[in-house]
């Protein structure tokens, strides 16, 4: 059997295992280890050991537990709640303002947390009761939370960008910077989507919160300054090159810890929660990475990427055509597959092809992350939707998925804009120091 055949067989088996609910990491590790054994028996065991150890001791990956820790500390210190409160106090009185405040709160939380699930979960718990209190349409309310949460992997820090960077050996710092403007753009498009929905059907946001006094608004903003300060310091530190992305994560976690201490939020119980949930998230991501790197090595052994690159060259496809085709393919995969799985599966296969076509991998990374965000909320399998369902047990999955569409379209618009104007993503990384 030639390499490409083994690779295709491997992919088919992998998809089947995922369909049968095998965890992403274990499935990739299994197919990778067996696949390598078929090609080069002696290589299988050392690759499994070497790749697991290699990723578990990869200096650049220390960024993951540190940023996860920072996000969790921000949670217990009440700092993430502050952001929502500030947004609520400034926007709550507007038409659809509570949904808008949810989106803004999610965007702010995303600047502290690299996870979309955490963003949806944390902001959802705070904002959903508010929106229900003011009789917002359930679809609009839950849709805003599920979609807003996806900003977690676009606005830095982002676990999605970290994994993409590790797989492609691009700079984590540059990918983070590339996510900023697209993240703000998408936030704005979400708000536009809310405004359109509400003006088409005012019954979806029947009432609004009272206008707050300027004093109350400033007080809310002032309280949020802590978190804004940490965000500016960490992101600004990366942009100006004062510290690396990894160091920014350590500093950010440390600052969040100090703020939690100042606010007297550190108790034995909260500390235990923060640490165990950080460990859990870290373990989950690394387990996927272990599998991903064994699988990536398997793909390297088969030579399938070379065959694919040659085929694309022979067909005479241009880079734009390939990128669009790839994005559409990923979007389809995204309906039934989970985002991280798509990322770790697709990147090893796509990278050599895109490189040979001269596609900017930072730009592609941003497009890919937006497509993954769409995957997080598109039926039938949308992780963020399931998370929101967990917070809103009385709202049916169908209602949530129906409320998603305006936001899904906003994501599509964002992807098209970045496809047409790569500068939206590439301006900051190009301006970056160094």
């Amino acid at each position, binding site marked *: 059997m030639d390499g490409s055949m083994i690779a295709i067989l491997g992919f088919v088996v992998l998809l089947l295992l995922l369909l049968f609910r095998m965890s992403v990491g274990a499935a990739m590790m299994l197919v990778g280890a067996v696949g390598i054994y078929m090609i080069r028996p*002696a290589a299988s065991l050392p690759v499994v050991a070497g790749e697991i150890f290699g990723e578990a001791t990869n200096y650049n990956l220390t960024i993951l537990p540190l940023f996860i820790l920072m996000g969790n500390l921000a949670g217990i210190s009440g700092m993430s709640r502050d952001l929502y409160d500030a947004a609520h106090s400034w926007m709550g009185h507007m038409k659809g303002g509570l949904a808008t405040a949810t989106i803004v709160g999610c965007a702010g939380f995303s600047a502290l947390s690299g996870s979309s699930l955490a963003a949806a979960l944390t902001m959802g718990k705070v904002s959903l009761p508010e929106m229900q209190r003011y009789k917002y349409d359930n679809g609009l309310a839950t849709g805003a939370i599920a979609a807003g949460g996806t900003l977690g992997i676009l606005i830095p820090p982002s676990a999605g960008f970290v994994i993409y960077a590790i797989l492609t050996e691009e700079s984590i710092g540059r990918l983070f910077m590339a996510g900023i403007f697209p993240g703000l753009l998408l936030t704005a498009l979400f708000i536009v989507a809310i405004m359109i929905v509400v003006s088409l059907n005012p019954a979806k946001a029947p009432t609004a919160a009272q206008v707050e006094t300027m004093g109350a608004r400033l007080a809310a903003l002032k309280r949020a300054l802590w978190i804004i300060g940490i965000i500016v310091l960490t992101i600004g530190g990366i942009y100006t090159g004062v510290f690396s992305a990894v160091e920014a994560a350590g500093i950010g976690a440390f600052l969040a810890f100090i703020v939690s201490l100042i606010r007297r939020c550190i108790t034995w119980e909260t500390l235990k929660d923060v640490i165990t949930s950080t460990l859990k998230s870290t373990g989950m991501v690394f387990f996927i990475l272990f599998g991903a790197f064994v699988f990536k090595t398997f793909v390297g052994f088969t030579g399938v990427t070379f065959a694919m690159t040659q085929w694309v060259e022979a067909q005479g496809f241009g880079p734009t055509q390939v990128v669009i085709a790839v994005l559409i393919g990923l979007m389809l995969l995204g309906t039934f597959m989970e985002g991280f799985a798509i990322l770790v599966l697709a990147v090893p296969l796509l990278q050599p092809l895109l490189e040979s076509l001269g596609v900017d991998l930072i730009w592609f990374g941003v497009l890919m992350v937006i497509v993954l965000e769409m995957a997080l909320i598109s039926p039938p399998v949308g992780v963020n939707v399931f998370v929101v369902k967990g917070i809103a047990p009385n709202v049916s999955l169908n209602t949530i998925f129906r409320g998603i569409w305006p936001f899904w379209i906003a994501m599509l618009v964002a992807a098209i804009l970045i496809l047409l104007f790569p500068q939206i993503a590439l301006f900051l990384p190009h301006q970056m120091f160094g």
Partner: protein
Amino acid sequence: DDFALAYFMGPNHPMNGAVFTPFAEKLAEVSDGALTVTQFPGGALNSSPTQQYSILRDGVTDIAFHPPGYTAQLFPVTTSVTTPGICEDAVECTEALWRAYDVIEQEFDAQILALWTTDPSVIFTADKPVRVLEDMSGMIVRVSSAQDVPFMEALGASGASQPVSVINQNLANGVIDGIAIDTSANMSFKLDEPANYITTNVPGSVTSFALLMNQGVYDALSDQEKAWVNEASGKWLSMQGAQVYHDLAIRGLEVAAGNGVEVITLGDDERARWDAAIQPVLDTWYVSEVGQGMTGEDVMRLMKGE
């Protein structure tokens, strides 16, 4: 037979044109196509530069490119070639390595196909030109290996370790003040963007490289096949690699100068002061036990052909 050849750099890296492809072509030629090589560039089999010797020994690949300095404790004699003063350019340093070949061979649990070095390091700095020894005082300089640290400290600076991929950015934003590296690196990492000065003729250290074949794979070959492999590899291949690196270093310096970097060459008197400053470290090394019962001085004499 078809051998898997793994390396962590991209296929367009000069190393490929200088050593890997010439080896593969020569092997196919002398064996009349009986022995061939399939390349796995870009870290397809393992992307960690420090793990290349490990994947070779484990049999993940048949042939690997490995810089011995990444696992220096395994190759104490080989990596002694980085000691300042043994040799002055890539060709000379590669000759020095091959003079010690019989000893070096013992350090490798692998068949050596090629063994060569870069030119010695120079010092790239961003804002502070280094014209005299005193300019080094208090500087933070990125060095290539732990062995370089005592020498850097003897010059009055501190040595920092950083992955080569981030040194450009770190020099730009002042995380480090300087980089001790050979000028061929300017071609790959565009160090002349953040750097404004290059000081040459300093007592620098070279980096050694090895192309290795898995010992079990080599031992399993027939005598005829071994002869083909030997013919396609060895000193000639190493000297070719050295020459490419020497030329790259010259080109790197020219490009830097063309981009407005001031090249400072230490005069002989000044160089003598630098040599004097590192002499105590050298003295310590001369009497130290390096490996295989040899002191630093023994290794130095062997490599210098004295």
